[in-house]
């Protein structure tokens, strides 16, 4: 009896397989995109902004009936995974998205310390990856499948160094950075190089490691060295502590920062100690172009807060990816990668960007913001 049932089942299965085999091959009915985000860990706001903007970008496409590729409209499905802001989890998430969820492309990770290991996985598996926010050159260096929506640190370091010299008239600078994090280390070194090349002097180059809460001995040394400006290329959760402790020690020189500052949490955590400080970043919500205006308004309506740079860059990453999929004309990782590599010009929320074959880094400009009355306010633009 059991044997009979088994035989019938087997026959049915085989028939089914045969049927599936003939007929026209039904291609994938959806476009799967993975998001590798820092939802928990040291910089949870980055992950939240990334997830929000990704959800919004995908909802916009799906509400319009889906993405049209080669004459067919496909719905986009999102797989959001948490990398806990850890390098090893980020690599594991990338691997999981590729092998288990079988995604067409990955957006994220955001922080360079997570994006660099994830990029190695994506490159090996030949899956296109776009990091919205990673600015360390190593993320895309020597890789064919990895792209980013942000500018890179040598450029940013130059922008901040020039700003400190020209606008703040600084001759002597001090730097305090997290030596255990790729982004902070990279940009601190680029800043030092440009500042010294331009005739300035870096009088103090101090370090700490991720998670430290006390910087008083480093700041004491910095104060002794007598700099005109202090550069803190660190993440938003640590910068307020550093600025507050500097003020407590009576160190009141101007402080400048980099795009890792660009979260409203910075002001929430730092309060009035942050007033008047400058940092370089990707876009300024208060002087937005029409494309950006539309994005900012719908983001505000949906999530109740002004989108930060991570949200804007994630939205742009999806914009780039959708454009690449459309121009590839098929749902194929290689074709999408080739299309991404030669996007001639893309008008995004964070400004105009273009890619050249042979590099995953876009050519785009940076802005300097100032914190005024608890708000990020546009100060100046630095062209590439």
């Amino acid at each position, binding site marked *: 009896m059991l044997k009979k049932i088994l035989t019938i089942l087997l026959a049915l299965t085989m028939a089914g397989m045969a049927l599936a085999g003939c007929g026209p091959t039904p291609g994938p009915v959806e476009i799967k995109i993975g998001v590798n985000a820092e939802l928990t860990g040291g910089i949870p706001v980055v992950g939240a902004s990334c997830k929000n903007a990704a959800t919004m970008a995908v909802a916009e496409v799906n509400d319009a009936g889906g993405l049209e590729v080669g004459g067919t409209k496909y719905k986009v499905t999102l797989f959001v995974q948490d990398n806990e802001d850890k390098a090893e989890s980020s690599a594991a998430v990338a691997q999981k998205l590729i092998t288990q969820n079988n995604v067409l492309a990955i957006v994220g990770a955001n922080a360079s310390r997570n994006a660099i290991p994830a990029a190695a996985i994506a490159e090996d598996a030949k899956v296109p990856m776009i990091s919205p926010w990673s600015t360390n050159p190593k993320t895309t260096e020597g890789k064919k499948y990895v792209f980013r929506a942000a500018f890179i640190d040598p450029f940013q370091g130059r922008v901040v160094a020039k700003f400190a010299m020209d606008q703040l008239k600084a001759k002597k600078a001090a730097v305090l950075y997290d030596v255990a994090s790729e982004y902070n280390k990279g940009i601190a070194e680029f800043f030092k190089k440009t500042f010294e090349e331009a005739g300035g002097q870096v009088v103090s180059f101090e370090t700490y490691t991720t998670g430290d809460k006390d910087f008083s001995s480093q700041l*004491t040394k910095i104060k002794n060295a007598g700099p005109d400006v202090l550069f803190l290329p660190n993440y938003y959760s640590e910068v*307020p502590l550093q600025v507050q402790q500097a003020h407590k020690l009576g160190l009141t020189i101007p402080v400048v920062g980099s795009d890792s500052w660009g979260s409203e949490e910075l002001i929430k955590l730092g309060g009035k100690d942050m007033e008047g400080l400058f940092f370089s970043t990707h876009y300024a919500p208060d002087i937005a172009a029409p494309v950006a205006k539309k994005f900012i308004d719908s983001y505000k309506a949906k999530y109740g807060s002004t989108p930060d740079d991570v949200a804007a860059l994630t939205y742009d990453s999806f914009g780039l990816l959708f454009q690449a999929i459309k121009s590839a004309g098929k749902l194929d990782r290689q074709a999408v990668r080739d299309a991404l590599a030669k996007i001639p010009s893309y008008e995004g929320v964070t400004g105009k960007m273009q890619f050249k074959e042979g590099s995953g880094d876009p050519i785009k400009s940076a802005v300097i913001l100032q914190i005024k009355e608890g708000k990020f306010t546009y100060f100046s633009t630095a062209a590439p």
Partner: protein
Amino acid sequence: MLRRVLESLSLTDSFMWLTGGAIVAVIVVGSAATLSMGRYSGRHWFDFIIFGLAQGSIYALIALGYTMVYGILRMINFAHSEIFMSGPYTACYVAMALSRSGFLESQPILSLAVIFIVAMAVSTVIAVLLERIAYRPLRTAPRLVPLITAIGASFFLQYTFRGLYGSGFQAYPDIRMLQGAWLLGPLRILKIQVVVILAAALMMAGLYLFIQRTRIGKAIRAVSEDKEIAALMGIDVDGMIVRTFVIGGMSAGAAGVLYALMYRQVHFFMGFIPGIKAFTAAVLGGIGNIPGAMLGGVFLGLFESLGPNLFLDGLGVPSPNQLKDAIAFIMLVMVLIFRPTGILGERLAEKKA
């Protein structure tokens, strides 16, 4: 005599002593070089010491919880860092509400009292529940079982609080009374550091008297010496264990508020590093020994604050502060080489060996 000593030395022993000697040599040479360089004035050293004391007294308060639970149950309560986190994290919302209503501004002392009470109450409740649910059913299980349970409980609590309050950082509001500094002649002391040191010292003195002078304290000591005999003497063993967790929870909650007032940030993962450091402090002082935990905490805080600048600056190590944790743990290794039972661990070794 000398030959007997040499014969009794094994290879590992001599290796350890050599390592210890080398570290001592580095410390002496480094400190001499730094001091002769004269890069830091007396005022700077004073700042480093005060900061080290403040940090150390927080470690000491947390270490009390580790050491008392170890003393009474012979287990390391790895979830203690979450007991430390739960109180101030919850009290942060109270503090923010007080700040919004303006009460914090008009009645800072009363508000601080409310914040402390809420934090200590939450930490205590968590500690007692932990004992009741996670540890008591395992009282007779092999020693590794409660240890693993403690690690599990630690994760459970971390992610419960993450679920409750989200994964973001929260800022403690400004308390104007605690800002700024006092001037003592040429010296400048931050008010908050003075408050932290005094509050911690007061609490530790109170606890010490409680353990040494009261009937309950005596009973707790009796239970930690020998549970069976204590039970035969009519002491409620379970009750004393609960009281130990209550004391540990209260001091962790208070330490948490002091920590949050100093750094003004709370986060669901904030307990991990201070917890590890406090555990180190407890071992440093001799685990199971209450004055030892206090001493170990202060010792560790001072070394973390003074160590990098005093030992390494003179040797020309660039930016030595990143080696702060390495120095703290090398100190632990040093103490364990020369005094395997910790600074005050001798009596413990005799009693419990």
